[in-house]
């Protein structure tokens, strides 16, 4: 079974970051504060379903495209 990623979250649903599936992208995400172990919550889905806005660790809100979100694997 495919792993659950941030792109599978429904609006308002929460998850805990486990790891990343893409090396280059993981560095960007880490630098922007998406750390393994942090809680993420899907806050908004832009019109046409993409990009999405997630809240990271209750601290701040990050918007990213679905293909970027699918790199973040959840526990």
């Amino acid at each position: 079974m495919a792993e659950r990623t941030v792109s599978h979250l429904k609006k308002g649903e929460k998850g805990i970051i486990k790891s990343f599936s893409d090396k280059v992208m993981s560095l960007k995400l880490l630098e922007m504060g998406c750390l393994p172990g942090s809680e993420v919550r899907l806050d908004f889905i832009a019109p046409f379903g993409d990009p999405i806005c997630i809240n990271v660790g209750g601290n701040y809100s990050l918007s990213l495209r679905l293909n970027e979100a699918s790199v973040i694997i959840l526990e």
Partner: protein
Amino acid sequence: MKSENIKIALVGNPNAGKSTLFNALTGLRQKTGNFPGVTVEKKSGTFSLKGTQGEKSREVTLVDLPGTYSIYPKSKDETVVMDILANPKHPDFPAAIIVVADASNLMRNLLLFTEINDLGIPAVLALNMLDVASSMNLTVNAVQLAMQLNVPVVRINARTGEGMANLQDAVRQVIDQTDKHPLPCFYETTHAERGLIEEVKHEHGLDNDYLALQYVCQHDNFSFVPVAQRVKLDGLIEKHQFDENAFLANETIQRYKKIKPIVEKAVKAEGISEQPYWTRKLDAILLHPFWGYVTFLLVLMVVFQAIFAWASYPMDMIDAGTAATIEWVKGVLPEGILNDLITDGILAGIGGIIIFIPQIAILFGLVSILEESGYMARVMVIMDKLMRKFGLNGRSVVPLISGVACAVPAIMTTRSISSRYERLLTIMVTPLMSCSARLPIFAILIALVVPDEKVLGFFNLQGLVLLGLYLLGLVGALLSAWLLSLFLERKEPGYFMLEMPSYKLPRWGHVGFTMLESVKSFVFQAGKVIMAISIILWVLASYGPGDKMENAEAQVTEQMKAQPQEEIDAAVASVRLENSYAGSFGRFIEPAIKPLGYDWKMGIALLASFAAREVFVGTMATIYSISGDSEDVLTVKERLLQEKNPDTGGPMYTPAVCYSLLVFYVFAMMCMSTIAVVYRETHGWKWPMIQLAYLTVLAYVSALAVYQLMS
């Protein structure tokens, strides 16, 4: 020894309040320019650092570096940060760095701080946004942080100016430190990296391990490292089998491991931390699939209402004022060449410049409010999917919207788009957004053919036509991007990833400052061009090859002997212009523009506006005031209304001609500065030339179609 010119650099995450702090420290003593060697906009300013008792205060220069999440650049403008910090010989290399951190998200903000710390440059940590942190139920202990990080930590509020004295004390303390033994590094190099580090340190005369690693990872971005040495570094990487990606991931994870306990000790959370209430409420509307677009459209409409309807009052006053001044000067000065040069050349030119001021000020003010409030980031989100369909990026919205003010700064803002492909496409189509220089052309032509009526009791019909022209430009930009994307090969995937700042009230002082700066740079930079062209044009229109002008004048006077003096004067003026250098030029290109419905007089204005579009109206003013009756001074609009078509006898400016001109100016790439900035940003003539060619063809064909269909 205290050096004469102390440089301090300001670094920090985007949205951490870096530029607010910059403004708080330097006030109005700032200037914008470029970093040497690169075309990244540089903001620097000075402030005086007060000395302790008995000491004199010192002037220090504060350099604002682009906002970044780490020292590893993700977009073009971020490369400048390390280009300076890794090069002690750089003129902007700082004696100390102020790292601005958003206290409400300390963990992430400290990542950049630890990287800077490891470079060995003395640093001060400025804790900003403590009010946001406390509204999120977070309390930050600055003393605890300072103890653990081994650097001065200062609590500030950049918006209110709180803590500036303490920050200055801390800065003075670190630059006056006599024993500059390096602080312990957060990143501990691994055994496997040692050999490579030692070789790089030896090769480049470095004494900092982490800096040596930066030479390894980032040398392609270092403008100060010659190509031969870059090749050598690549050889060393090969020799030691250094895996850059593995190193980067490992480094960042190691840093966070060290930061985590520090943050846990210094930050106490009580209750649930959550984004500010208003930000969540507003996002629910502004990011809504339906209401999000409705609000965006409303915002755009207000912007256009402002630059067309509201700006028209001061503009009418300026227009009338210019006409009155010219009339007054004409009467005061003795008649002759000097009088003509001053009134028809110089004053008409100045009038053409200052008339733009209200619109430019309003436009830049509104764009700055949208950016400051945090709304622009939301617009990028709701537009990203749409933009991607055309090969662009949600971030392209900012250049496209700024393009409505001026394409030159707009093209410079494309540097925040990390994908080269999406950036190039954005650059190629940004000039299609109707810039403020086209506004006066639109304004005058619309005023000629569109009645000044209200639609639905609120919207001004002229304003709606103007909105239509802007939309035409937008549609043209999107379609061109899509067409270009078919021919351009995409090498890497585009990124979007964008932090959503919380909503803030704009800092009005800063908005005012932006307006002032934009007007100033317009008047002094664009103004110079317009002025020079006005004078050249006056000369070209007042003198002709050989005695052609005199002969023609004599002929007309001879033919019209019986007519009243006024009519002879008008005919003479007209025939003189026709036989001047400018007239001959216009005549020469007339066959090419005749199918579009233009005559040789418009041809002159068209050619002159190749330097800058805003020259068009000024040129028209000059041409028609030369050919017109010099006794009474009319506004440009009145002159155009009076102009007769010699073939039909009807008015020259028919709706067909006006709409054809309007469409021509929507599409045409008539701006030297834009060509120059595209050349600079794409490093070559290839793209600006392709751009010039496709836009000229597009403009000509569309104008031709409009004229032929309407007449």
